[in-house]
């Protein structure tokens, strides 16, 4: 549904995006993660058609986004800091969105009012707290019935109850209408619950892009303890050792490779203890980046 090819963007000599490739399948919930300054917001602004690419292409639903109102009408966008015109209240914003988005669903707007009960529709939205403004943004955007949702830190500022409600509305849209969602967040635990695809950005490049299952199957935490006279021999080259710590005779390894093969290989060495544990998205993020980012390397050490 979203296809970014060789996207490059430079800001005053700084390469924010460097031949970036990104692919979000239709109906997927795609988590875009990366450290600060890795280029997440820049990619999103290209996908929304706000930034002009220096090089490369950005397509949504098979069409270029840049200067294409037809494609933009399919997309809903909730940035970290939503913009509301001065003195605009919810009713005025509804009129604006109705006039811009042909798919705007007035009935849904009224139905969503039951969720966002704390919002006074006649009060200027700019006078709301950040969390309330975010609720207002969700209310408006979800009423547009977008086929593609682009979210940048979408639930940041929402209370836990509202977070659940918002995710619930969003995921039911995905389930019922096949909405494609691209979500950027630093809250990896939350993303892990909702995403089925993940892309990790680092310094403007896509470090890895997989389905969450593939990702979690492809990297594993191994706890292995050898006998008193045994040494842990190096792993074969087909596996990538991302990290290793040793405490007494217990070795903890983070290994990239097929889980079953890793198990068989290590079991053949007759360890006293052998456990393979799945990694959380946060751990995967940290260990994957650990090989690239000196700052993260230091944390791991």
């Amino acid at each position, binding site marked *: 549904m979203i296809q970014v090819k060789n996207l490059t963007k430079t*800001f005053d000599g700084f390469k924010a995006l460097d031949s970036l490739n990104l692919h979000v399948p239709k109906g997927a919930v795609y988590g875009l993660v990366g450290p600060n300054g890795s280029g997440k917001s820049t990619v999103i*602004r290209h996908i*929304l*058609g*706000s*930034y*002009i690419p220096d090089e490369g292409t950005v397509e949504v639903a098979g069409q270029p986004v840049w*200067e*294409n*109102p*037809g494609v*933009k*009408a399919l*997309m809903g*966008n909730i*940035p970290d*800091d*939503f*913009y509301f*015109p*001065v*003195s*605009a209240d919810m009713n*005025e914003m509804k*009129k*604006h969105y109705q*006039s*811009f*988005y042909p798919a705007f669903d007035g009935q849904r707007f009224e139905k969503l009012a039951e969720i966002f009960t704390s919002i006074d529709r006649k009060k200027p939205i700019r006078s709301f707290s950040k969390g309330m403004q975010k609720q207002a943004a969700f209310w408006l955007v979800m009423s547009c019935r977008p086929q593609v949702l682009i979210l940048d830190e979408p639930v940041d500022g929402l209370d836990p109850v509202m977070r659940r409600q918002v995710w619930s509305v969003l995921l039911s849209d995905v389930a019922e209408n096949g909405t494609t969602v691209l979500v950027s967040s630093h809250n990896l635990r939350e993303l892990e619950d909702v995403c089925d695809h993940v892309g990790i950005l680092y310094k403007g490049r896509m470090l890895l892009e997989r389905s969450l299952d593939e990702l979690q199957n492809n990297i594993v935490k191994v706890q292995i303890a050898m006998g008193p006279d045994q040494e842990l021999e190096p792993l074969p080259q087909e596996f990538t050792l991302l990290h290793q710590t040793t405490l007494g005779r217990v070795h903890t390894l983070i290994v990239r490779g097929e889980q079953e093969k890793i198990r068989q290989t290590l079991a053949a060495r007759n360890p006293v203890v052998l456990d393979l544990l799945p990694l959380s998205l946060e751990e995967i993020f940290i260990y994957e980046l650990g090989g690239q980012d000196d700052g993260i390397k230091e944390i791991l050490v």
Partner: protein
Amino acid sequence: MMESKKSWFNKAALRLDLHNSWPIWAGYTLFWLVAASFIATNYYTSQDFQHQMARFWEGCTNLAISFAVPVYGCVVAVWLLRGLFHSRSALAIHALPVDRKQLFAAHLISGVVLNAIPTLALALYGTARFMGSGSDLVLGFWTLVDFLGASWLAYLWAFGFALFCGMLTGQLVMVPVLYGVFSFLSISLSTLLDSMFRKFLPGYAPGNLLGDLGRWLSPWYSMGMDVSWNNSRFDSWVTMLVYALAGTVLMGAAYQLYRRRPLERAGELIIHRPARVVFRLGVALCAALFGSAFFQLLLGVSDSVIAVYILMIICGGVGLLGTRMLELKSFHVINFRLMGEYGGVAAALGLLMVILNTGGMGYVTRVPQPEQVKRVSFIVSGSVYCGPVEMSWSNLILEDPEQIEQLCQWHREYSQLLLQNPNYPDEKMEQQSDNETVNTQENTYDQRWSYGTGYNYSNIFISYTLNNGTTLSRKYGVTTSRQEVGDPTSPDGQMARLLAGVAMPEILESWAPYLEVYFYEDGIQYEPGARNKELVLALAEDLREGGWTCSLLEQDPFWEQEITLELTPDYGAGDTQELSAQGGSYPVRVNREYTPRTQEVLEQKFAF
């Protein structure tokens, strides 16, 4: 208009533009109603009832194109583009399902709507106010049409120009700043350059092209100064149409800039990268010129080329650094690139000063050969001690080869003097003020003259028309000292002889029908009779024969008392523009040797 994917029109974008815009058009309407009330009251008190309505619209038009419309056009553009200057709003607007051409078209339509409402209100108000006042409604109607046409053309320029400025910058406050500065920049720069060239390039005469260019490129100034009326009908349509066309072109340029506008640079001083360098260097050069002009006056160092250059590079450097600091919003801006740019500015200014100081690549000494010259137009303002009339703005045409040769010779010698010392006229003025006594015993001096001390300062403008059809113009400030007028070898003496021999008789002959001649004897005034043409013509003849500098002649011992002729233009009978410009009366001392014909007339007619 059909709304489609390809359409320029987007109703939602227009709606967004006009949302909450009422304070803009309501404020402008209120301004006009108040201003129009004052203008109308002013013409109600007039006794010219028939023209009241026409005069009202005339007043409204003048106010509109010289002030109201230029300001309002900029306000409207700032209002419509306001979303572009903050990253959050710019990104939000451009993520909506609308493309830039539709957004831009919405701005244009909104601009029209926001001007149409106040204009319509004013038209209705003005018509209602004068409907039963006895005014000529047909004339009033046509003047209203003039108002509508002129103010809309001015709006087209103002709005287009402001849109263009808005697309150059990423900061809201910079839109009116750029708009205001660009509206007057050209005229200010051309005036400043003109004064610098005159100071350091002796003989520099600004061509019409530079002046016209400066004026045309200063639209606000030009529209405020150049509009005119003819019998209650607007008469400056060409000016307005040219600016409206320029406004339209600028709208097109603004759209092209908008299409390429990088939203990530919202908030920056100048949005487009190539324009940044031009802006930085432009500010540096303007700072160099304006700053040095200011400090020259403040420090009194305007005569020293080196001092002016040092001031220029200091002010230019401050301008360049300041602009870079504003661009980066940081004080840490000095790097090799900036130093390189600064070096470029300093070198350009240095080159300019070297060119100016070395005669402008032959400009100062360029004097045509007499045989190349077909005609010379010659204008003098000020006094040159050369005859009875202290000439002012006398436009003389020289076609006689002998006179042209005389002029070329003077010009050549004078330009050489100026090349050696550009401050020659000023220094001479100071010397003349300091020197109380002059040695007049040198051989070159004619002992019959009353030398004394003193000087006159005048401007001489010479325009050669060459045989090949081209022109060569020069303008000089000339200090004419009383001593040197008596020295035929000095440039002053040459110029005085040239003027006395050529210009004075011509002037006197053309003035003769309009001049009153009085003469004084021992302080008692005698009136020889109105328009004593015979006396004037006799004096003119004397001057042509060499009786120049009559006002400096010693009193002739032939006359027992001092007799002075006084020539006064008779404004009542000879109210021509030329004479009106002269004013005053001019003394002539009569001398037997140098003014024999004058003496003859005086003897015959007045029994002296």
